């Protein structure tokens, strides 16, 4: 397994109930997994734990054979090689598209950096917008900039937190297509958190339905959608 979460317990506040309890997750290399669930089901928490933005109370997280977090080890977010696209994109407002994308590869030489950013800009079809600031971009362009910024560092896994929630329906369909293409081209292991079954259907190889921190159903998206095993799964996949 390329990504492995074992026996995870997590809560945001020590006095509160666990968001995740004895949670297990396994993903193969190159696979795209979609996590569906209603608000508060713990789906974004899974991404934050994988990115190292939160620390679990119990359990172990392994990415690419390297232990990222257990009782004795904690690899900080900057050393995890994880790319993440945030729900509201979190594009740095004081930087241009080019600067935003090159931000994560400042260790490279100027020439290498420029080349890499241009390659990524071409991939996401944003070359003409490289000098613009985030507020000058449309929703779809902002989303692609965030994606480019996340993948330019060549991370081991890509995490997408509700990537389409800020887009209107027409735009969503187009962006889904191009996102699928990009993921296929770079062949990266991807986890998408969403509450829209169409995201899973169009993008994912595997789908899990989450409720109160527990996996209610797991499988291939088309199969799950045609045969939900609980009322909850049915309501989520309807």
């Amino acid at each position, binding site marked *: 397994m390329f990504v492995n979460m074992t026996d995870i317990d997590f809560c945001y506040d020590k006095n509160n109930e666990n968001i995740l309890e004895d949670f297990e997750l396994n993903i193969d290399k190159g696979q795209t997994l979609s996590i569906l669930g209603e608000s508060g089901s713990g789906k974004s928490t899974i991404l934050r734990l994988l*990115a*190292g*933005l939160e620390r679990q109370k119990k359990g172990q997280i392994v990415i690419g054979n390297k232990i990222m977090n257990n009782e004795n080890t904690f690899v*900080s*977010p*900057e*050393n*995890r*090689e*994880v*790319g*993440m696209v*945030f729900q*509201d994109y*979190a594009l*740095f*407002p*004081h930087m241009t598209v080019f600067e935003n994308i090159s*931000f*994560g590869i*400042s*260790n490279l030489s100027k020439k290498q950096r420029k080349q890499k950013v241009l390659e990524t800009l071409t991939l996401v079809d944003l070359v003409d917008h490289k000098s613009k600031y985030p507020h000058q971009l449309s929703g779809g362009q902002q989303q692609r900039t965030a994606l480019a*910024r*996340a993948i330019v*560092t060549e991370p081991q896994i890509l995490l997408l937190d509700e990537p389409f929630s800020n887009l209107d329906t027409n735009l969503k369909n187009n962006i889904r297509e191009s996102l699928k293409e990009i993921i296929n081209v770079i062949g990266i292991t991807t986890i998408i958190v969403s509450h829209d079954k169409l995201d899973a259907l169009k993008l994912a190889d595997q789908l899990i339905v989450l409720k109160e921190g527990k996996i209610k159903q797991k499988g291939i998206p088309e199969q799950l959608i045609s045969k939900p095993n609980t009322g909850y799964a049915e309501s989520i996949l309807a």
Partner: protein
Amino acid sequence: MFKKIGFTNKWSVISFFLIILILMPSVFILIGFFNPISDTWLHIRRYLLKDYIYNSVILVFFTGLFSIIIGVSLAWFVNAYDFKYSNFFKWGLILPLAVPPYIGSYTYVGLLNYTGVIQTFLRNNFELVLNQSYFNIMSLSGAIFIYTIFLYPYVFLITHAFLQKQSASLVEVSKTLGKSPISIFFRIILPISRGAYVAGTTLVVLEVLNDYGVVKYFGISTFSTSIFQTWFSLGDINSAIRLSVYLMAFVIIVLFLEKLSRGGKQYSYSNTKIKPLKAKKLTGWKNWSMFIYAFTVISLGFIIPVLQLIYWSIISYGKILNMNIIQTVLNSIGVSLVGSFIILVAAVIIANTVRIKKNILTKNYARIAVLGYSIPGAVIAVGVMIFFLKMDNFIQLISGQNNMLLLSSSIFMLIFAYLIRFLAIGYNSVESGFNKIGTDFHEASRTLGNGITKTFFKVDLPMMKPALMSGFLLVSIEILKELPLTLILRPFNFNTLATRAFEYANDEMIHESAILSLILIFISVILVYSLTYIKKKGR
């Protein structure tokens, strides 16, 4: 072990040591409380303590009450009504904050005494010689007037900011339900803005308890003046410590009452669509009465004292304008720039740690960082002095030089005291800046391979420049005006505009203190104006 207490990066390590340093003076005061009781203390407790408590309670209660009446009513008027120059009053009514109350106090004494402008005018034009007691402002009620007219802007500012954001629909729905403007004010506006004006009044009360200049000049015994007197005139540091603890108990009661009066009364809107209130255009007598009310307040709190100071400056500038004054101005600006910078750096380090590492320890960092603003200057001065003397003793022990007072005679001691007293102001600004930008940008940068420090300089810092500038300006204003700490802890022969103006006035050289006071007010007005400009631009 270190990881268990949160030492996982440089930020948390530095924060931990900063917090320990900030707590040290308070710890020494608490330890000092258990020293043996002296005869002086027995005398104070038997004959004087009652007066200190009585005077402090009267000053705090009535200043608080009148500040609420003026601050809330003006905040509501400038928000709800469009009257003559109401746009100017929105920021003009903050101007009295630029006049430190001790400067206001001796200006009013000069204005009202036998040779002052008012009595001279009445004598020369109407041959009126009135009973002098009518003009005696050097009393408890005079002090209440001075504090109210120069400190009400705290209530005005916070309530005004709150009402600006309030949902217009609340007022509009009340109107459709047939309520009159007066009924809306008392039944809607007062209850919903309670949290805001209680917070503003608490600031006023804390300023009153902190003040030394006004009560010393008026000869009113309060905790502040008695701490000075016990320490410097009677040379009894242990009794000064005891008085400090009593004063702190007084402050704790005030903060408790604040919490009590705010508890359960925090209203929030049930929807997020908050639109500002559309001001109603006033005409006729209503228009004029609002204008006269606001203009009277701003005249008493700013225009009249400043005009008086200008007049005194004109007749005395030949005596005072020399190289010393330039040195005093440079000292004031220098100490407030350096102090503000250090405070902002400390605030950023602690606030960033609190933001990134959320645990019980860092939750308490936030509480300790804002604690100092509620500790009166005289108490901080006692604590800091003891702490620095102990450190000097330690240095003497190590170096073997018995007469060396390296730290307790240096400017560091004063700057350190400013850090404790004003860290809350810097911290609140930085914290609101961090809250505004949220954590997504920080987290995005971290997942892109940057550590906390690099993320701070590349992402957080550029985005929170306005908040940092506001914090810097706010702290600068406070340091510039600060009196009790500076009077006690400044190095020998080191004068600021505040200490020099106060000393002149205290030596009955009111005219001589005018230029210094004017320069101080002028710099403060520029800073206040810059602050409102930054806030306006930020919006």
